[in-house]
């Protein structure tokens, strides 16, 4: 799970009266290290590969460009250029590099990556992309995006873009960047994160763990839906393969009627083809149970999000209350000392329409002091509530994590068991069929 991006606005807020959210929230640490751009707040839950990826020195290159045709979101044919991104890890001992990943990306995917970085690292100067369309052309011909010179310059520009990110102390550690270089389907995660950000409250100091949890639940949901979709397509195709073999059964049987020597072999082989074809029904039905297990966790993702939302609501509420309290205290102080710093309607009208009497001022101060008292009580209890919630919620989330890991592992193992059973059946049937064929 990825750490929450450091919010630069925290630097500008007055320090809160009490630590908000979880006592060990990143806030304290963030305030201290903010200046340095605290990107190394490792939650310690990065994947092994992610860490290892950065232990070695890597080389990134955009080595080739290729014209492609495909269908766009509107299902219309379009021509575009795809670029080959190659990642090499360099062995320290001999300086030789080994190709570890290579995939093709088009310009719009680079844009997606950059948009994500812009949103998630608002305080960082994100390296720019080469121009989308050829501009400032001095030659009419090179206005074409397909022009080889333009493509070549763009290839260089894209490579430069990636190298700049890779050499940036904070951006280089971003997981989405890593996935951009290594995973064809990275956009699922980038996209869901972008969507998630748009949907959040302007909660200033959420508990980092809940933010991470929200990301995680989005990722879980999108990856499981994708997996289920592809699994369904695979199952569909597999069904087709098995069922077509059933046709052999019928034709072999008919053919055997005219064959003297081959007849018996054909007939019995045909029978085995029928067995083979009908075996797929049970196989796929078993797989549906597996799919159901995954679906349960797909829906669990929503439940996780609900818990996160509750935390956000409470946090937001708390922050609003704290803000209100702070402003009241400020007013009180000003009234008491006679300095006017904060804007209030009363203050303005007083200025415009004459000073208030000391008695009036005393009265106002008293009211404010009462409100402040009340507010402090409320804040205390809200804080307590909040911490209680976080403690309980997190306990349950830990329990949930254990359960999820157990269940998913079991599901994956049961999937393997199903595959094994399918293979054994296949071997049986085809061995029988082979025997029949060899007797023909």
């Amino acid at each position, binding site marked *: 799970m990825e750490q929450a991006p450091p919010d630069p606005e925290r630097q500008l807020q007055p320090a809160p009266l009490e630590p908000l959210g979880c006592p060990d929230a990143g806030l304290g640490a963030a305030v201290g290290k903010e200046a340095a751009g605290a990107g190394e707040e490792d939650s310690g839950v990065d994947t092994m590969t992610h860490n290892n990826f950065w232990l070695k020195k890597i080389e990134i290159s955009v080595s080739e460009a290729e014209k492609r045709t495909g269908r766009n979101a509107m299902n219309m044919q379009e021509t575009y250029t795809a670029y080959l991104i190659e990642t090499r890890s360099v062995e320290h001992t001999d300086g030789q590099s080994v190709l570890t990943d290579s995939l093709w990306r088009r310009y719009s995917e680079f844009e997606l990556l950059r948009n994500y970085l812009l949103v998630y690292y608002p305080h960082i100067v994100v390296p720019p992309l080469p121009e989308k369309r050829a501009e400032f052309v001095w030659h009419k011909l090179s206005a074409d995006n397909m022009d080889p010179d333009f493509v070549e310059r763009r290839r260089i520009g894209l490579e430069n873009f990636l190298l700049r990110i890779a050499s940036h102390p904070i951006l280089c550690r971003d997981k989405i960047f890593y996935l951009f270089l290594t995973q064809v389907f*990275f956009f699922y995660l980038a996209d869901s994160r972008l969507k998630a950000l748009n949907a959040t409250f302007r909660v200033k100091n959420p508990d980092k763990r809940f933010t991470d949890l929200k990301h995680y639940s989005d990722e879980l949901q999108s*990856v499981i839906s*994708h997996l289920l979709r592809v699994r369904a397509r695979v199952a569909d*195709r597999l069904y087709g393969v098995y069922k077509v073999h059933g046709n052999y059964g019928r034709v072999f049987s008919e053919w055997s009627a005219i064959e003297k020597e*081959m007849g018996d072999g054909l007939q019995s082989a045909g029978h085995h083809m029928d067995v083979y074809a009908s075996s797929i029904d049970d196989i796929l039905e078993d797989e549906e149970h597996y799919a159901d297990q995954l679906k349960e966790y797909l829906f669990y993702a929503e439940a996780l999000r609900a818990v996160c939302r509750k935390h956000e609501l409470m946090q937001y509420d708390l922050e609003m209350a704290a803000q209100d309290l702070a402003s009241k205290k400020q007013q009180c102080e000003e009234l008491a000392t006679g300095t006017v710093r904060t804007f209030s309607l009363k203050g303005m009208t007083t200025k415009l329409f004459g000073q208030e009497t000391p008695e009036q001022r005393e009265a106002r101060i008293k009211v404010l002091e009462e409100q402040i008292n009340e507010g402090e009580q409320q804040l205390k209890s809200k804080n307590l509530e909040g911490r209680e919630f976080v403690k309980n919620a997190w306990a349950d989330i830990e329990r949930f994590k254990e359960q999820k890991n157990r269940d998913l592992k079991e599901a*994956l193992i049961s999937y393997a068991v199903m595959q*094994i059973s399918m293979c054994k059946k296949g071997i049986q049937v085809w061995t029988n069929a082979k025997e029949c064929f060899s007797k*023909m």
Partner: protein
Amino acid sequence: MEGERRASQARSSGLPAGGADGDSPGGSAPFPGSSGSSALLQAEVLDLEEDEDDLEVFSKDASLMDMNSFSPMMPTSPLSMINQIKFEDEPDLKDLFITVDEPESHVTTIETFITYRIITKTSRGEFDSSEFEVRRRYQDFLWLKGKLEEAHPTLIIPPLPEKFIVKGMVERFNDDFIETRRKALHKFLNRIADHPTLTFNEDFKIFLTAQAWELSSHKKQGPGLLSRMGQTVRAVASSMRGVKNRPEEFMEMNNFIELFSQKINLIDKISQRIYKEEREYFDEMKEYGPIHILWSASEEDLVDTLKDVASCIDRCCKATEKRMSGLSEALLPVVHEYVLYSEMLMGVMKRRDQIQAELDSKVEALTYKKTDTDLLPEEIGKLEDKMECANNALKADWERWKQNMQNDIKLAFTDMAEENIHYYEQCLATWESFLTSQTNLHLEETSEDKP
């Protein structure tokens, strides 16, 4: 053990050369007096090229069987000719080796076409040299086939690959198409070389050895296109009459051919469809594995399990690819060749019927004294000989063809079964090792979870 077999009576009535029982593993020569020994040559012993070797081989003195030269020079009567049909098992006497390779594209102002290189190695005396290399195009193969059909109207000439396939082709010259055609042409020539009679055909020899210009000039000799067309028209008309008096054994042969053609066409379609389904399955599988890797990026505790699942799926994917390619190499071309063969067979029947028709009409003329009948008896005599030869040639070649067909079909389907077994065995091994690694790591957990 067997399911009900339909029309079992039809089977037991059998075909003319009856003798061999269904279950005898050796498969014997249909003619009792044969000296054929080990007979059914096991697939493992032979090269693929040699599996067309006959069990029953005609006498090498095949000039007797040349239908085209039906002249008074024929030394013997049809009756004694039958006795000369020997069935010798001579697998080691293959002395003509042909390969077809190196397709090359030629572009002229009028057309683009492909030529194939044909290399012939031989120890036969009648060949001027022991090695030949020529280039031929599809048109040349068509010419050769025509000449063989003309010379031996009732022998079963091997089929040529189609001119072009209508379905699923973007353009004539895509690589897969050329490769498939090259393999089929290679098979075509080798089947001719293995045929006891056709292998000595003069046009065949010229095809294999002549330089391009020699071949063109040779082609120009012989009956022109028009006369050949004229023959075809007559043939269609008269073959209908020949059907009426078709002897019993040929009626049965014809029935078989019709049914066989139906079935083999169906099998061809089924096999192509299986290939297509497998390809689509493979395409979807390619996407399936990587999703697990993506998932592992957000699951710290399940990283290894997910990655292992992904790699299992990828390995099964590769196994599928291998199965597909096995299918397209072993099964599809064989089945397709027999689809074309079934069309050939129908042509052969027609030609036989045509000769019969010719004979019958002359006999009719004589019987009813319709025209000047002085020369008729002699003509009829010749035609009767011709008919007898044609029938015997067809009968013998039919047996040979059937035997080859059984071998080829059996081999092709056995291969297909073998590919599938291998595929499932590979996948089984993959998933079993995954399971082992999972249970090894978490022995306690799994024992708790076991029901």
